[in-house]
């Protein structure tokens, strides 16, 4: 999220767009400094459950305007003297609410700055196994040019790999283009290799060729510079992204069941291939749509992560 200085240098229209996406109520009537403050405030104050409780108690006791001002001050909310009680109250409630959520979903606002040490919070996220302790190497197609691989190891494989690592042997992910061949490990059209760092469990590979089949292996090189595979993946086929080059049309008569084959002259409608798969909504629409259908979810709204391709994490 943008630091305050960046916000201050932003255009009002950009700030409004950010505020809209964050679901900040009444943002469209805000002036620039109010927008900056509202957005900056969204970054959240360090969480202190005790302080939060005491603030909430004070709010419940129907505080007078000067009390609200002092609370706002200590919460780091900037405000104007001219601000009405109602408005100030709303702002405080919003901040307290934000603090609560920041505190309760540890880490979900990853980039927020923490000035004071945050007391450890029990994770609300249900933990799942980080490994199923089985030898697995799986390839999944992403689109015509990218394939995703993930892997996991059985304990004995972990031991083997650890032993290899001690000998400074680099683990390698090998990807083979095996389109239309019976693979014998030596006849792939193309081979790519990627070093696998310890702890890495997935990788996106830019395979370049649509409508092609790929296989991967994880392994290492022995002393004779021979690649020794440890795991092999399933076969992955990337989808096509252009018209078939086949010159044949196959037809069947539904009444007689008679089949016939004709020479194709291509597609009569001569389709203009653009915006492939522009879903009934493009991604921007989708965001808005889901934002809208989830209503209040607006404040949790963030831009979709750009595809992280060709890298790992």
């Amino acid at each position, binding site marked *: 999220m943008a630091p305050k200085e960046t916000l201050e240098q932003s255009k009002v229209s950009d700030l*409004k767009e950010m505020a*809209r996406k964050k679901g900040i109520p*009444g943002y*469209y009537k805000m002036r620039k400094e109010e927008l900056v403050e509202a957005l900056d405030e969204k970054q959240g104050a360090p969480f202190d459950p005790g302080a939060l409780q005491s603030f909430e108690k004070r709010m419940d006791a129907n505080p007078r305007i000067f009390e609200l001002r002092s609370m706002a001050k200590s919460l780091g909310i900037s405000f104007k003297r001219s601000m009405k009680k*109602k408005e100030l109250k*709303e702002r405080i409630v919003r901040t307290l609410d934000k603090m609560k959520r920041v505190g309760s979903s540890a880490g*979900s606002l990853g980039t927020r700055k923490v000035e004071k040490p945050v007391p450890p919070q029990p994770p609300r996220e*249900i*933990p*799942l196994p980080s490994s*199923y302790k*089985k030898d697995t190497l*799986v390839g*999944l*197609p*992403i*689109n015509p040019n*990218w394939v995703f691989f*993930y892997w996991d190891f059985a304990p004995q494989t972990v031991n083997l790999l650890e032993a290899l690592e001690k000998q400074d042997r680099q683990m390698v992910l090998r990807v083979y283009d095996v389109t239309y061949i019976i693979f014998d490990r030596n006849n792939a059209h193309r081979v790519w290799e990627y070093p696998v760092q310890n702890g890495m469990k*997935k990788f996106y590979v830019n395979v370049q060729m649509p409508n092609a089949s790929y296989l991967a292996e994880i392994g290492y090189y022995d002393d004779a510079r021979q690649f020794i595979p440890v795991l092999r993946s399933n076969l992955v086929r990337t*989808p*096509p992204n*252009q*018209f*078939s080059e086949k010159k*044949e*049309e*196959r*037809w*069947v008569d*539904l009444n007689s069941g008679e089949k016939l084959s004709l020479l*194709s002259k291509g*597609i*009569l*409608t001569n389709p203009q*291939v653009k915006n*492939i*798969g*522009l*879903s*009934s*909504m*493009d*991604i*921007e*629409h*989708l*965001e808005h749509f*889901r934002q*809208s*259908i*989830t*209503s*209040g*979810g607006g404040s*949790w709204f*963030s831009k979709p*992560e*750009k*595809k992280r391709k060709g890298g790992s994490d």
Partner: protein
Amino acid sequence: MEKGFVSLVLHAHLPYVRHPDFEEFMEERWLFEAITETYIPILRAFQDLERDNVPFKITMSITPPLMEMLDSNDLQDKYVRHMQKLIELAEKEVERTRTEHPRKHKMAKYYHQDFQDILHIFETENNRSLVKAFGHFQEKGNLEIITCNATHGFLPLMNRFPQAVRAQVTTGAKTYEKHLGVAPKGMWLAECGYTAGLDKYLAEENIRYFFVDSHGIWFAENPPRYGVYRPLLTENGVFVFGRDPESSEQVWSAEIGYPGDFRYREFYRDVGFDRELEYITPYIDRSGVRVNTGMKYHRVTGKNIDLGKKDFYDIDEARQAAKEHARDFALKKQAQLEGLHRAFDGVVPIVVAPFDAELFGHWWFEGPMFIENFFRELHTLDTVAPITPPEFIEQHVQSVQIATPADSTWGANGYNEVWINGSNDWVYPHLDELIVRMTELVHRHGNQNDAKKDRLLKQAMRELLLAQSSDWAFIMTTGTTVEYASNRTRQHVDRFLKIARWLDKGNMDEKTLASWEWLDKIFEDPDYNLYLKSS
């Protein structure tokens, strides 16, 4: 004489979001909003067409989780309470807007009446059963309801496991039958996600047709002579229809799409956000988080107009716009189909226009009026008529081209990247492992005349199917309510793993199992034997 046909397809879907352990739950509003803004307004459009004897033909997928939710008594109760509160808010708004602006006041009165009508349609006219209400129009021949794979699981990434695909497809077909009493003829594949071989599972269930996005047809293994304007037959004998890109663009494009008309209602101005907190608190989420109420007073007004500067909405002007757009769309379909008919030398074309149902009404408030008027306009034209896919097959397909469609989806960019990318790829190792374990569990513990084991296997299957909903991965990509989606995935995986442990250890916590059966109550009698066949 008809020269071509239009098949409008609405995909109605929501993930299974039901939290009976909470009196109110924010994400349950998805369903309530969809009922109020989309499902009932569409029903009402059907009723009006029926009353006026306008022949209409439309196809709707009502997905298994949506059917199960619409059929859930606790959600029905909650919906009624939700509407009662909304009507109360509308009452206050009628008073409040009296002194604000005449057009606001007019709309407040409209909402007040409309919400009451909607509740009446829900409770009194249809005895709370919207599935039956739609079923009525299926029986009359106007509506073709199709199913979807069980929990809207994304099949292209499940394809390595025939048993998992089969469980999704068959459970989808069976759930339809349970709710509608007949077998489904068609299936909407979640996210329009097709990959070679899926047709086999559809054929096993006697599903006669499904849909793919345009490029699924265009890039088919053999060149499709008529493009997306005639169905193809797959290797396993299932018909496949392709999406018409022109229709999508006419309705959806940000530049030229109808919903952007300045007279239409602005989505982002809602009293849930506009009114002061004290006043609106009883009508928003209990946590104090503001939400949309559905009461909105502004119109789109113009391009790039600040939300704060939007003009007031007038529903009569908007109705007029919906009529004009319906007329325009009908004429465009006529021109398009006549052109195709000429180009095809008299072979009859079909334009298939699928949309997310929730677009109509929820996002595009006037959408249901548009649909209604579209059928009225089509009725005035001689050369085009609406049709459902099975009718088209029966009446207009004598010989058909055989081809395998290309792997494709209707997601951004047309392939799988919306459902597998850096934000959500972590789910797949878990989902895959669960399939493997489910299969092993059924082999080890199934069919032993052990009621407890049966219960555990059934619940394990429910948890697996729920974890597979494509919605969770989708939400992680779009970045909205990610925490909810992530927790749902984690929760179902976690419950599955615990059940698996109980089965293998021969013990279980009866109370916990019962609570999961109550919470994740989708599919009354899931058939775990579907995991036995691995080809």
